[in-house]
């Protein structure tokens, strides 16, 4: 993360190549964060672009005393995602779990793909569907902890809430995710995910 600080200094000094290095280092993670929230790749790309434009415009507001650049970047991204969620709440059409499972079943037959790829794809889709069923507060906590590997302190900084609240949200998020996944398994019959160790 010291490397980020150096790059940041160079960025602020007007070095465009430093910004490019910084961008290449973090785009993938932020894109994944956006995808976990939206579930749509095109939307995730647009959001990633908007987030980095915002970061570029507010680089001078970064305070190293309040945490690392990575934590700050996550906070900016999270705030933007929450804004986006609120902005699109009315327009969003939430389909039922059954409908989503229906579309999942309509995918190409597993006979076409190797079994390992099918399992991997199904697990990814199931996880994404299940995450979509969580409330934004719980989802972001679980995503930051279990998919982004941030520690409790970092998540507390990103979300702007006490660590106790973070712990509580993560625990509730996991429990809720487990319930959703169990329901999905029950609807689809015995799945490979259930056989995971």
């Amino acid at each position, binding site marked *: 993360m010291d490397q980020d600080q150096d790059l940041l200094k160079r960025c602020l000094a007007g070095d465009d190549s430093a910004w490019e290095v910084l*961008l290449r280092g973090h785009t993938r993670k932020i894109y*994944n964060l956006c995808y976990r929230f939206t579930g749509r790749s095109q939307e995730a790309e647009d959001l990633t672009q908007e987030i980095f434009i915002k970061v570029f415009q507010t680089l001078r507001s970064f305070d190293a005393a309040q945490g690392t650049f990575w934590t700050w970047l996550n906070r900016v991204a999270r705030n933007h995602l929450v804004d986006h969620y609120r902005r699109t709440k009315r327009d969003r059409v939430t389909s039922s779990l059954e409908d989503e499972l229906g579309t999942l079943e309509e995918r190409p037959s597993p006979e076409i793909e190797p079994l390992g790829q099918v399992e991997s794809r199904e*697990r*990814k889709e199931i996880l994404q569907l299940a995450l979509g069923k969580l409330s934004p507060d719980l989802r972001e906590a679980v995503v930051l902890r279990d*998919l982004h590997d941030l520690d409790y302190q970092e998540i507390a900084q990103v979300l702007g809430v006490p660590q106790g609240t973070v712990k509580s949200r993560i*625990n509730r998020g*996991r*429990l809720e995710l487990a*319930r959703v996944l169990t329901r999905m398994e029950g609807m689809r019959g015995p799945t490979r995910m259930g056989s*995971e160790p």
Partner: protein
Amino acid sequence: MTHLELENLASDYLEGLLEPARKAEVKVHLSECAACRELVEDVRRVMELCHSAEELEPAPWLISKILLATVGERKPTFRQQLAAFFRPAVQPRLAYAVAMAVFSFSIIINAAGINLRKLRVEDLNPRTWVYRANRAGHLLYAHAEKFYYDLRVVYEIESRFRQLRSQPKEQEKEAPKQEPPAGGSTDSKPLFSPQLASTRSLFLATAAPVGTIAPKIGNHPLTVGSGRSLSQ
């Protein structure tokens, strides 16, 4: 410990964040309650599923789009400009074309007899080029012709033909004295008695390589020197 308390501690228990005493309480409860054991197991599976999830790759052009939207069109450095300028020149096609042009130019220069080290004003006149090229062509032709007639096999064939042409005239005249063939051998013996047979053997001899001519002639040795000495 109640079921609700255990539910609240499930993540801390799985992440190893509980104090030893609290952890022991959870273990005792789990050993007694199948439903809570199943719940903890479900949470563990969720955590494993999340950790095993692969990262997705964004579209390759995403970074370029963001760069364009933030720092705009980046001005290339001097080195990049230089590389872009010479990029077409490093292609094999152009190198081949340049090599062919140099080769053609060197042929023209040689044919025109121009010495680039001692260039004179008249060397720049196209008439001089044509004259010199014409002269070089004729010299080349003369050298080739001389080389051709200096070949032994050529000379032998020609001398035989000359003999064949001269013999009918001699028969007509019925000359008592046999003259040596013009420009041919210094030997005074007659070449062949039966004309038809000699003609056939002559063609066989001409078809053979130079070194095999003498044996073919066999009983009719023909003393020949070099074309140059005889013609003199």
